[in-house]
């Protein structure tokens, strides 16, 4: 379970996230929507401890997140992040990308880690690509490797920062399918994405953010079909 409590993050004078609170129960998926600059990415980066909180608290499975702590990198290992632009390590094979975290951070021996990594790659449909380099893969394949890489750390929660926005249209489906499979498998997920179909299918709750605050939230059917706020209606009319 992820609890985000009154979280605020400023960049200089700009309030990127202002007093945002929400709860993601274990095994559920929460989708964040909103225009660019609305703070969705910043929320994810705060949960991943890539940014420091200015105020508020984030608690993951009863452990408060403290990005100022000396061992913050261990905290980050508990959350898996998938980026818009994949950020695979270009100098490593697919298998090395997926095994890096468990080997270096968890200090686990190579053989079982590789076996697990191959199973994860098979799960995202890339069993035959283990020995390729990222540049030899399509965007959709790279993003699925990035998902496997994050999963290899056995995270308590998976964070997706616009995972399909950098992809060609014909590759979006394969990435969404991998995410659907995860969500249905009981992974706790927070997803910043405008993929309505995905949100309708698996999201328990959708949050509409604008200018760093939560404008409206609710189950996808309510938020998409019967938005209460004008700002939500305006935004939805632009992206649908």
């Amino acid at each position: 379970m992820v609890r985000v409590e009154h979280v605020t993050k400023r960049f200089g004078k700009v309030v990127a996230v202002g007093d945002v609170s929400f709860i993601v129960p274990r095994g559920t998926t929460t989708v964040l929507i909103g225009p660019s600059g609305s703070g969705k990415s910043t929320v994810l980066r705060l949960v991943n401890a890539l940014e420091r909180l200015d105020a508020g608290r984030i608690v993951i499975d009863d452990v408060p997140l403290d990005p100022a702590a000396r061992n913050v990198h261990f905290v980050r290992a508990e959350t898996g992040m998938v980026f818009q632009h994949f950020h695979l390590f270009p100098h490593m094979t697919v298998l090395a990308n997926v095994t890096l975290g468990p080997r270096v951070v968890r200090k686990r021996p190579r053989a079982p880690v590789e076996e697990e990594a191959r199973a994860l790659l098979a799960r995202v449909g890339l069993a035959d690509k283990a020995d390729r380099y990222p540049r030899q893969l399509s965007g959709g394949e790279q993003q699925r490797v990035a998902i496997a890489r994050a999963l290899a750390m056995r995270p308590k929660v998976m964070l997706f920062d616009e995972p399909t926005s950098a992809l060609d249209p014909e590759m979006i489906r394969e990435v969404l399918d991998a995410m659907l499979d995860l969500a249905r498998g009981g992974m706790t997920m927070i997803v910043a994405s405008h993929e309505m179909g995905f949100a309708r299918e698996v999201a328990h709750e959708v949050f509409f953010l604008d200018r760093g605050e939560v404008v409206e939230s609710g189950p996808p059917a309510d938020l998409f079909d019967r938005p209460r706020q004008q700002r939500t209606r305006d935004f939805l009319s632009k992206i649908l």
Partner: protein
Amino acid sequence: MDWIAHQLKLIGRIFVYLLPAVPETLKITIVAFTLALVLGVLIGIARTGSVRTARAAATVYVDVLRGIPLLVQIFFLYFGIGRLLNLSRFPSGVLAIGIGYSAYIGETVRAGIQAVPRGQWEAARSLGLSTPQCLRHVILPQAMRIVIPPVLNDFVACLKDSSLVSIIGLRELTRAGREYYSSTFSDFQTWTVVAILYLAMTLILTRVSGALERRLRQGEG
């Protein structure tokens, strides 16, 4: 005809005399440059790191060393610090060149680290890697590929600058040339041979490094 034959014989003799000094030049270059690489990587990391004191110290180090002629640094190390610590010629000369070059390599490494996209840091961090682990597994391997061409360039320059230590009496190629010339006064012939020997070394080096670069470029895309 006689004159040409005589010249060729003389040049041949100079060649035989100078050739044994070539390994010494190579030894000075390799030892000094290895030292420069180790120090340079540390400087580059410090310059890009988040520890303020390390960053400031590295900046001062680079500024000072780049602002003083290498020849003066060699004098300073040999006659100044070397005397104090009782260092002989070889360690003094090698230290001076190694430290002098580490400033340039430090700057190259800094540029290489900064050329690795920020997303690579974030991806590595989000997996739970600590800063040293990020550097070792993700950032430095990519930065090294970026800096190999400029570092090879520095290596060639370092080979040529190794001639500067002749001034403190290290018997490398340039020093051997001076010895020969001052005992025979065959100035033109001697320096021609010295020049050809340096040129041969640097040409071999640039060809090897060119091939290395091409191989590395094939390995990525």
